[in-house]
């Protein structure tokens, strides 16, 4: 039979049963739009986090204590095992890094005049700003000698400025007190905003690590070492290099777990992506189930309508429709329903994703993949779930069908 006729037969039959068609479509609409929304949210959070992390420095490499191993073999030695020598060896010997900084930290209270603000001070060297992609807005980075002399100077973020300097004063050159130790503000950082999870990137106070070690924490070890690879593609090599230096320094025997971990921002990003992918898959599966339910809805209605429309089928056969004409009609009806439902679902899902984006500020993005996926699924559902009832209709005997009441 000719395709035009087939489509107009199917369309006429659908128009005569708008309610039935609409109810069938509803399942598909809900299924498709939830797939699109779920995947858009998943994709969106992935993009948002990827953005944030590269904002923090995509070439960044961190050497941290291995907390896992500490759980097994306790002892202060491993807590304090990261030394300044480790940093010096890395800074001197590693070829694939463009900068390195020791890292010590301590919590305390900042006071300026009558204002105070709790903060975690980061003790680092002059390379740190570059490694963390911090930029100076006013003032300067540490000057020569600041590190060596354990100078009581600091660089602060926007949030700290707002909390301490309420009268719009210029913070540069002012003395603020950290746990009663006076620090001179020498720099203010450009704002980086805050992360999706509410972490404020501007709530920072950066001081020379020597100052934090001696005057605040009274320790001689490091909490971590930060470095940056010369470019993202060298990050693996840089990690290998640093690991080698550290393994040698810490006398880690072959095959034994080290008391440190070397991680790059990229790896962290990958780990987070793995988690998000998992969540996206989960959300997608839930959405997929609703799509499946929609498909079963199609089958259900098509099946019922074969019974309900037995007389119609008989009548069509009596005027010359062949089994395959009936089969084709039912299939085309199912496909039209699923594709229309799919289209409405895509529009609705994209609309809702857009609203979520406006409301939440996440980079919620409808991926072409999810649109193609759900469209393919719709066609498949239409054919798959329309097939059985259609086949049943096609095999009816004309006279039996027309006598059916």
């Amino acid at each position, binding site marked *: *039979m*000719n395709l*035009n*006729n087939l489509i*107009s*037969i199917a369309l*006429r039959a659908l128009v*005569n049963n708008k309610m039935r068609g609409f109810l069938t479509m509803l399942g598909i609409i809900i299924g498709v739009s939830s797939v699109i929304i779920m995947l858009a949210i998943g994709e969106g959070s992935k993009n948002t986090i990827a953005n944030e992390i590269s904002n923090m420095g995509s070439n960044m490499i961190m050497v941290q204590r291995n907390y896992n191993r500490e759980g097994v073999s306790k002892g202060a030695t491993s807590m304090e095992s990261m030394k300044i020598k480790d940093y010096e060896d890395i800074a001197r010997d590693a070829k694939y890094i463009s900068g390195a900084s020791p890292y010590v930290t301590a919590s305390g209270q900042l006071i300026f005049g009558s204002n105070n603000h709790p903060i975690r001070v980061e003790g680092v060297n002059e390379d740190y700003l570059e490694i963390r992609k911090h930029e100076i807005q006013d003032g300067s980075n540490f000057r020569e000698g600041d590190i060596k002399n354990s100078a009581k100077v600091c660089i602060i973020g926007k949030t700290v400025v707002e909390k301490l300097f309420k009268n719009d004063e210029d913070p540069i050159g002012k003395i603020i007190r950290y746990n009663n130790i006076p620090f001179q503000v020498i720099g203010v950082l450009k704002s980086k905003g805050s992360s999706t999870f509410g972490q404020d990137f501007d709530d920072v106070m950066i001081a020379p690590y020597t100052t934090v070690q001696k005057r605040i924490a009274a320790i001689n070890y490091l909490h971590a070492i930060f470095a940056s690879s010369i470019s993202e593609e060298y990050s693996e090599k840089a990690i290998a290099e640093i690991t080698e230096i550290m393994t040698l320094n810490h006398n880690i025997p072959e095959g034994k777990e080290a008391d440190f971990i070397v991680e790059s921002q990229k790896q962290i990003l990958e780990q987070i992506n793995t988690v998000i992918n998992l969540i996206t898959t989960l959300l997608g599966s839930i959405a997929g189930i609703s799509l499946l339910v929609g498909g079963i809805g199609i089958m259900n209605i098509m099946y019922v309508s074969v019974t309900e429309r037995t*007389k*119609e089928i008989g*009548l*069509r*056969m*009596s*005027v*010359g*429709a*062949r*089994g*395959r*004409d009936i089969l084709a009609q039912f299939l085309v009806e199912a496909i039209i329903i699923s594709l229309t439902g799919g289209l409405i679902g895509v529009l609705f899902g994209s609309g809702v994703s857009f609203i979520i984006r406006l409301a939440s500020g996440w980079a919620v993005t409808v991926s072409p993949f999810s649109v193609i996926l759900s469209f393919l699924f719709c066609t498949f559902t239409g054919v798959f779930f329309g097939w059985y009832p259609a086949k049943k209709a096609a095999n009816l*005997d*004309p*006279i039996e069908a*027309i006598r059916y009441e």
Partner: protein
Amino acid sequence: MKEKIIDIRDIKRHFQVGEELVQALRGVSFSVEEGEFLTIMGMSGSGKSTLLNLLGCLDTPTEGEYYLDGKPVANMTKNERAIYRNRKIGFVFQSYNLLPKTTAIQNVELPLMYNHNYSAAQRKEKSKQALISVGLEDRMMHKSQQMSGGQQQRVAIARALVNDPVMILADEATGNLDSRTSYEILTLFQELHKEGRTIIFVTHNPEIAEFSSRTIVLKDGRILEDKVNPNVKDARTVLESLPKEND
């Protein structure tokens, strides 16, 4: 001599209903020439519909041979029979069997929808002509349920006509209609007959048989008599002699 359009020999049709075997037709033989107007009569349950369904290729006999246009129907596939119904046969049912919620013109178009030799425009034109020939030119866009029984039966007749069939089979086509409307429909069939079409008209009403050229009476699945009607009544004359409706 005229062509034998239908030739059936010792046709039997049995139905298995649970344990019981219903013998609806117990051996029926006759032939119909092109251009005949044949009435099949008999009481309810005598096998008229069963016979007509077989003649219309809607059903197949349990036993016996059926030659349609000289071809044995037993050798046709299901699809070939469908094509035969589509191109050569027009069927009119007692209960009209129109598609619900569908306009008259779309109902009439239905057989041509399954015939790819017609373009959409040709299909429309033919359907219009068929509706005009049954006197429904002003009802084309009316939907089935918006029409009276007589009008619906006219739509059904137009649908049976639209594919220019060699024969029209009608099963109690006037069974649901009042007598005036019945005569209108009969007039229509007589006109179609005059145009040269073969018509087989099933009825249990002996009066109606007087309008056809030949009558076969069935009883319990067998032919009781097969007689030619020498003086065929004219339905239009009867219709005009009826008291006018004053509405």
